[in-house]
C-alpha cells in the first residue's frame, strides 16, 4: 500500500516538474522577449525566406501560432505545441527542429550509453580496490585522481586528447565524414556504417569515461569505507562470514545504491553533459546542436532542443523513481 502511495507521489511530482519546465520555457522564450519589447515571432523567423521579407513571415507566424495574442492565451497555444512536439523550423538548418533532433538522438545515445557503462564499472572496480586498501597509498592515489578528474575542464583535456591521439598519433579518426565514408567516396551503409561510427566514437567514449567516473568512484568509495566500520559489517565479521564475501556481496550491494542514483541523474542530464564533448570532437549530436543553435541565435532550435533535453531528464528521473524501491528496500517507508 505504501509502495503505491510512494509511486503516485513520485509520478505526480514528475508531472509537476514537466509542467514547471514548460512554464519556464514559456517565460524564457515568450515572456522575456515581450518584456524587452521584442515580438517573439521575430525570434522565430530568418531575415528572409524564399524571397519573402521578414515582416510578412512574422505576420504569417503570428496568424498561425498566435504569437500576437495576449500572453495568457498564448501560453496555452505554446503548451500545446510543446506537448505535441511542434517545435518549429530551425532557421539555420531550415528543417523542422523535431527531425533534426530525431536524427541526432541515436548518435548521442551511442556516445553516452557505452561511456556510462564503462565509467560505472571503472568507478566500482577502483572503489572496491580503495575500500579494501583503505588509507593506504593505493587508496589515497586512486581517490586523489578521482577528485582531480572530476575537476578537469572537459573541453580542455578533450582538445588535448584529440590532438594527441587523433592528429599526432593518428590512432583514431577525427573526422566523422571521413570515418563513415568508404575509400571510393560512398557513404557506408549497414553494419559497416555503425562499425566505423563506433570507431570514430571510441576516443570520445573513452574520454567521457575518464572524466565522469570520478564522482561515482568517490561516492562508492566513501560509502563503502563508512559501511566498513558500520555495525552490520562488524556483526557479519563476528559471524565468521568471509571478508571477500562481505566486500563483494554486502558492501558492494549497499554502496552501489547512491551510485545508482547518481548514474540515474547522469543519464537524465546526459545530453546536457556531452555538450562540450560533442563540440570538441565534432560529433553531430544533441549537445552540439544546442551550441550551434546558440551560435546562430537560432531560437526555434534552442527552444526545441532545450525542451527535449529537459523532457528526457524528467522521463529518466521518473524511471529512476520507479525502479528505486527495488534497489533500496527502505525507500517505501521513508
Amino acid at each position, binding site marked *: 500500500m505504501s509502495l503505491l502511495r510512494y509511486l503516485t507521489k513520485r509520478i505526480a*511530482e514528475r508531472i*509537476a*516538474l514537466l509542467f*514547471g*519546465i514548460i512554464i*519556464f520555457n514559456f517565460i*524564457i*522564450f515568450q515572456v*522575456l*522577449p515581450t518584456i*524587452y519589447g*521584442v515580438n517573439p515571432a521575430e*525570434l522565430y523567423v530568418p531575415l528572409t525566406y524564399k524571397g519573402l521579407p521578414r515582416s510578412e513571415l512574422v505576420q504569417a507566424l503570428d496568424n498561425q501560432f498566435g504569437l500576437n495574442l495576449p500572453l495568457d492565451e498564448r501560453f496555452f497555444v505554446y503548451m500545446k505545441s510543446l506537448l505535441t512536439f511542434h517545435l518549429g523550423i530551425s532557421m539555420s538548418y531550415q528543417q523542422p527542429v523535431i527531425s533534426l533532433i530525431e536524427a541526432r538522438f541515436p548518435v548521442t545515445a551511442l556516445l553516452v550509453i557505452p561511456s556510462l557503462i564503462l565509467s560505472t564499472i571503472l568507478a566500482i572496480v577502483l572503489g572496491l580496490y580503495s575500500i579494501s586498501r583503505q588509507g593506504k597509498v593505493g587508496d589515497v592515489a586512486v581517490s586523489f585522481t578521482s*577528485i*582531480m578528474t572530476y*575537476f*578537469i*575542464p572537459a*573541453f*580542455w*583535456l578533450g*582538445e*588535448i586528447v*584529440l*590532438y594527441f591521439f587523433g*592528429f*599526432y598519433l593518428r590512432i583514431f579518426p577525427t573526422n566523422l565524414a571521413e570515418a563513415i565514408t568508404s575509400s571510393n567516396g560512398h557513404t557506408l551503409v549497414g553494419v559497416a556504417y555503425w562499425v566505423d561510427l563506433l570507431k570514430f566514437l571510441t576516443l570520445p567514449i573513452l574520454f567521457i569515461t575518464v572524466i565522469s567516473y570520478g564522482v561515482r568512484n568517490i561516492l562508492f568509495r566513501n560509502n563503502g569505507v563508512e559501511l566498513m*566500520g558500520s555495525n552490520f559489517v562488524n556483526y557479519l565479521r563476528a559471524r565468521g562470514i568471509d571478508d571477500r564475501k562481505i566486500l563483494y556481496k554486502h558492501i558492494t550491494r549497499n554502496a552501489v545504491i547512491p551510485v545508482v542514483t547518481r548514474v540515474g541523474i547522469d543519464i*537524465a*542530464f546526459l*545530453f*546536457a*553533459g556531452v*555538450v*562540450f564533448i560533442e*563540440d*570538441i570532437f565534432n560529433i553531430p549530436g544533441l*549537445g552540439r546542436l*544546442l*551550441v550551434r*543553435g*546558440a*551560435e546562430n*541565435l537560432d*531560437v526555434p532550435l*534552442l*527552444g526545441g*532542443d*532545450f525542451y527535449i*533535453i*529537459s523532457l528526457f*531528464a*524528467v522521463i529518466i*528521473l521518473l524511471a529512476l523513481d520507479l525502479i528505486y524501491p527495488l534497489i533500496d528496500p527502505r525507500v517505501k517507508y521513508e
Partner: protein
Amino acid sequence: MNKVIRDLLSRKTFIFSIVVILFFAAIALLAPVLTSYNNPYQVSQQFVAAPYAVPAWATIFPQYHDLPPDVRLTLTPVSASGVTPVNSSFVKITVPAGGEVNVSYPIRWNWSSPYNVILSFILVPPATSDFNVNLYMNNINIMELSPVPIPPAVSVTLGKPNSITFSSQTINPSNSPYVNSLPFQDQPLASLEFPKAVLPRPGMYYLVISLQNTGNSPETFLLSNPHYTSLGYAYGRLGTDDNGGSVFSEFVYGARFDLYLALVASVLIIGIGLIIGLLAGYVGGFTDLTLNALTDFFLLIPGLPLLIVLISIFDLTGVIVNVNKAVLILLIISFLSWPGTAKIIRGQTLSLRSRTFVEASRALGEGKLRILFRHIVPNLMGILFAQLAYDVPGVILAESGLDFLGLGIIGFPTWGNMLGFATNDLSFANGFAWWWVLPPGIGIILLSTAFYYFGTAMLDVLSPYKLRGE
C-alpha cells in the same frame, strides 16, 4: 580554537589546499606588480616576443636550447681610419673624394635566428647629393640610402639628421635590395626568411654601413651608434601566445578575474541558498513545501543547456547591451547554482531546530528571530564555509565553459578564454604550445581541487555535531 587549527594543520590535504589557494590568491593580488601587460588581448600589448615563443626557462631543454630571447643592443663600431668618435654615441666619418669607408659593427650572436630584426640609427649625410649609403648584414645588402631614391633605395634628407629604421617585417622589393635579389616567388616570404639569412646560427656577424663618396671633394658623415632589436623565441615565465602576447600576463590576470568572479558568485550563491534554506527549514509548513519544490525544480533542469539558452536569449533581446557581460554571467551562474546549498542548509536547519538546546530556548520563550540568529545561524557557519569552498570550482568551471564556447567574456583574458584560444589553436602546423595550453587547465584543476579539500576540511572541523570519527 587552537585545537581546530591543530586538527586542520595535521591534514595533508588541508595543507595542500592552503598552499595552492594562497599561491593563486597571491598572484591574483600582485598581478600589477608581476607583469606590466594587463591585457595581452589588446593589439598594443601583443608581440612582446615572437608568436609561440617558449618560456625562457625552457631553453634548458635540448630542443629549445638555442632559441634566442628578445635582444636589444647598441652597436659600437670597430675602430678604422677615417672614423672618429664625436661623443659616446656619435662617430664622424670623413670619406675622401671618390672613396668609400666601411663602418663595421660586430654582433655576437649566440642563438639560432630571431623572429625579426630591427635596426635604427641617426644619419647626418653631407649637404651635397654626391653620396650613397649601404647597409650590409652577414654580407647581404639589406638597405640602401640615397639622395636620389630609385627603388629599392630609400631617400634621405641632405645635411640634416635622418632617423633611419630598418625593420625586417616591413621589407619589400621597393625598400630593400635583399628582397629584390630573391627569386620572384620567394619575395612574399622575405620577412620570414630575412632573419635566417642574416643571423643563420650562433656566431660573429657584422653590420656594415658603407659610406660612398661619389663627388670630388671629401665629405663628412655623422652616424649614431645603431640600435639593434629583435623579438626572440624564448620569452618570460610562460612564453607567448599566437599573437606574441605574454601568456604569463594572461594567466595572472585570468586568475585575478576567475578568483574574483568565483568568490563573488559563491557569496551570492551562499546568500540565496542561506535565505531559502533557512526559510524552508525554519518556517516549515507551506513555505517549506513551496521553496523545496522550487529548489528541486532548479536542481533538476539541466544547467549547462539552460545557461547557454539564457545567455543567447539575453544576447538576442538586447539585455546584454545594457549590462556588463561579466555581471550578467555572474548573476546567471549564481541564479542557477543555489539549489544545492539551499538543500543542505534546509536539512541542517531542520535537524538543528529539533535539537535540545533550541527546544529549550523555545520553551524559555526566546523569540523566533533570536533563536534563529543566536542558535541556528552560528551553528551553520561550518557548513556555510564548506559550501562556499565547494561552490568556487563550480563557478570557475561554468564560467570557463562559457568562455570556451565563445558565449562568455570577450576582450580580456580569463582562464576560460585562454583554454578556448589555446585549444582552438592546437593543430598540426602550430605544434603543441604546452606553455599556453597547459597552465590554465592545470590552474583550474589545482584551484578546484584545493577548494574542494578546503571545504571538506572545514566541514570536518567546524560542523558542530560531528560524530567522533574513528
